[in-house]
């Protein structure tokens, strides 16, 4: 299990094309710095849906909160996730941490609104 850091693309008023990380792996864990304005964009072109699980380390009254899970539909799946509140999803180092059920055909862009 490798930890893979993904650098968010900072959006600008000048406009840009997002960078997608591709070839994700179910054996890796992905981290994205999250100052609070990160949008995760998942696209799936495989013939099978993919599940993304965002770790939720926060607790409420001592009780754990279930991790956030997203199903990315097969073939043309296009799911945008935001907001991802730092106080809920960030680890101690200020990162979102997520894993995927399978990586073939699944890509992700981490966008950060300036």
């Amino acid at each position, binding site marked *: 299990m490798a930890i893979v850091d993904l*650098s968010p693309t900072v*959006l600008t008023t000048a406009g840009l*094309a997002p960078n*997608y990380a591709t070839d994700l792996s179910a054996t890796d864990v992905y981290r994205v710095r999250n100052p609070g304005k990160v949008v995760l964009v998942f696209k799936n072109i495989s013939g099978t849906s993919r599940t993304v699980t965002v770790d939720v380390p926060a607790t409420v009254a001592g009780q754990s909160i279930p991790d956030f899970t997203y199903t990315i539909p097969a073939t043309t799946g296009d799911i*945008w996730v935001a907001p*991802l*509140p730092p106080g809920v999803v960030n680890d101690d180092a200020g990162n979102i941490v997520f894993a995927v059920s399978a990586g073939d055909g699944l890509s992700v862009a981490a966008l950060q609104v300036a």
Partner: protein
Amino acid sequence: MPIVDLDPTVLTTAGVTPSYAAISAATDVLRVRNPDGKVLLHFKNVNAATRTVTVDVPSTVAGQAVPDFTYVVPSQVAAVTNGVHAAVTDTAVQVVVTTGITNPTRPARITATSGGTATDIADIQVIVTGTDAMDRVITETLPIFTENSATTVTSTETFKTVTSITIPAHDGTGATTAIGFAAIPGETIVAPLPAGVVNDDAGNVVFTVSAVADLTVAAIALS
């Protein structure tokens, strides 16, 4: 000059799929509610020509008008069968190609196309190694060729660069294998669009486009 209101897709922690809208006419004026300056505009272009988007900027600075914001949405790059490497003629042994490689102009899915003498084409699988848009090293074994028939297969991953191509031996030296890339749509995301700069009196972003064919836009709002 019709005014067309676009409803932004509001992003949620639960995740949503944005709605992409075609634009009916270049004479349309498009409006999107942008009360907090939290709207993103996502343009996709699958036309061979670029598209220009002009966001109206009604603001003034010291009495001087601020120029409108303009964005060029890149054109779609057409697929090129041998755009990464010219056809390689079979030599009866596996070859690993690391030279003579041209990277796609933008990250793209990679294609492999078999050709030449049909009866020499084997049901082999080409292996491509390179990097993705975030410069991570990736490797993919492409789908299998159809034996005795010219075939094009396409990667599921998107490659920014290609560093090596492994081509197993075919069934005869009359077969060829060309490496190219699939069509690459143009894509531009614009944000932030500061409400105090771009909004009209009613709190809308207002924009027009140079041409509408093959152009779609999603208005996406952060909650």
